[in-house]
């Protein structure tokens, strides 16, 4: 989503935030800490396990889910999108993946990657799998799905093949697919919204 050298964003902050919110929720879902209640038709997101996640960010997200299990996933996406950008940046700085943002002569520099190769690697993996038309590992399928949902894939991937994207997303479990669709809905609404 970001330039791997400068760290400048390629995606509008609002869309990036919705995508990141989807990503953090999917982390919890992949770790089997949370899932979607598809039967109710409300797509309610709830925690399935109270085990500690071992990471402050996902833990705080999980704590929110445990405290208020009644909300549909769309509400959570909007809720987490408010703060998630800064949170994820903070987590990546703490993990020494990003350099802290620096101020140069009044101009705020974005947090830049510590290692360009590490930063470029996920996108390269996606490019590679599109090129070979072979779905990547599940984690990357989710990343790919969210990337398509936010509209970033069409912009940043070397080639974009809607049929392959659909096939990749179809590999995922029903709750994860639903999460990606709801992210896409939220992105569409953000585009239509006047603010």
């Amino acid at each position, binding site marked *: 989503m970001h330039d791997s050298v400068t760290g400048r964003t*390629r*995606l*509008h902050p*609002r*869309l990036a935030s919705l995508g990141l919110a989807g990503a953090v929720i999917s982390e919890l879902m992949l770790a089997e800490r949370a899932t979607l209640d598809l039967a109710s*038709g*409300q*797509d309610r997101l709830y925690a399935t396990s109270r085990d500690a996640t071992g990471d402050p960010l996902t833990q705080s997200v999980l704590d*929110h889910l445990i*405290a*208020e*299990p*009644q*909300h*549909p996933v*769309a*509400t*959570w996406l*909007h*809720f987490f999108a*408010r703060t998630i950008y800064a949170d994820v940046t903070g987590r990546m700085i703490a993990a020494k993946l990003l350099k802290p943002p620096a101020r140069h002569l009044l101009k705020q520099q974005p947090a830049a990657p510590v290692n360009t190769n590490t930063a470029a690697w996920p996108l390269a993996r996606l490019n590679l799998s599109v090129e070979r038309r072979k779905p990547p590992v599940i984690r990357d399928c989710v990343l790919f799905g969210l990337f398509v949902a*936010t*509209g*970033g894939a*069409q*912009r*940043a991937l070397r080639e974009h093949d809607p049929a392959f994207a659909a096939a990749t997303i179809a590999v995922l479990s029903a709750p994860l697919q*639903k999460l990606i*669709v*709801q992210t*896409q*809905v939220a*992105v*569409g*609404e*953000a*585009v*239509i*919204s*006047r*603010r």
Partner: protein
Amino acid sequence: MSLTEQRPSAVSAALAKDRLGVPSVVFFVISAAAPLMVVAGSVPTAYAVTGVIGVPFAFLMLGAIFTLFAVGYVTMARHVVNAGAFYAYAAQGLGRTQGVATAWVALLAYNALQLGLYGIIGSAAEPLLLDWFGGSPAWWVIALVAWALTGLLGLLRVDVNGKILSVLLVSEIAVVLVFDIGDLLHAAPSGISFEGFTPGSLFVPGVGAALATVVAGFAGIESSVVFAEESKDRNRTVPLATYLGIAIIAVLYAISAWAQTVPTGPDGIVKAASEQGTELIFNQAAAHLGSAVSTIGSVLFVTSSMACMIAFHNTTARYIFALGRENVLPSVFGRTSARTAAPMAGSVLQTVLGLIVITVYAVFGLDPVTKLFFTFGAFGGLGLLTLLTVTSISVIVFFARNPSEETVWRTRVAPALAALALCVIIGMTLINFDTVLDVAPDAAIRWILPGIYVVAIILGVAWARVLKATRPEVYANIGLGAQAVSGGSK
């Protein structure tokens, strides 16, 4: 309702902080209606082209009809997804096929309203440029500058910032009111006449043409329900803001339209408006209040036209985006500009259409105010009337099929009365369409233009049938907008 839902929710509270209250929604809604542009642009043009003195009464009457319409409209907004779009009402009330036909009409109408604005910006800016630099380029040069600016801002998704918008809007309304007072203090020798407020002055030959223009002045008010999802209390905020918006527009425009007739007297207004066009109210203001006030007004006229242009550009682009998201239009229109979060393809399409229209009018040397601004405005007004009628009927059908606890007044009586009144107005507009276009009563063009809507409806129905036969999964999602990708579950 379970116990957990009654506990105050930190999540709901946090999200509620970002939500809009009544004043914000009213500001958004009225700014799209651009008060100064209507008062300085539409009203004198309506006087000049139609020769009808009853324009002030027309604003009050249409205000009443819009209020009736809004009763059913805001009621249904509580029950449907994608409440911002007229075609969603038709799709969810009358059926998906009718929804697509409505979408086609809406695209045409909004496009016409947006494109017509390129005709007014030139005459809005010209007097200022003459005053400041002693010369002014041709109208189409100014229009092209405005066009480029609108297209660029549309792609960058720069909606005029809410705060700037409120400041502009409040100053516009203030200027309009000051102008009105100036007019009232300098009545014609014959004294102040209230003729403009009498029904008799409106229902004369040409009434339909005047009504179509006045309807275009209300365009934008229907966008209030777009904010249903983002408002503090969707059951209260949106209806209140809608009624308030309609009331403010109707009263402000009626008074201002009437005030313009006071210095000239009702008999002189048509002549004055024909001679001075969009400069009329600024000339009046300069005579009564001095040139400084008049110049402030002229500047705001330009900003008002620009803001209106951007608002309509973005509205139309979003409409196209929603249709693309549903795959009713090619899915390329449903694509987002990832970097700016703008509905890219729709925006570009708008911009291209704008260039074509400006070029055609410039090449053929057609008058931008009466032939572009007024004709397109009236054409768009006619489309808007059609949309309002269809929406009112959709409301009735929707609640007949989906019984709810809403009152009969909201679900049946008010929408039925609104539909009836709107049909009458459409009839009158069609009868007077020769006046709108300023052509002979037997000219073919007067039937061709309204006929475009008929063609759009037929094409829409045909396209819906094609979709139903070849892509049933797309057909099933018609009317859901951004929700379409999820198959409608919320």
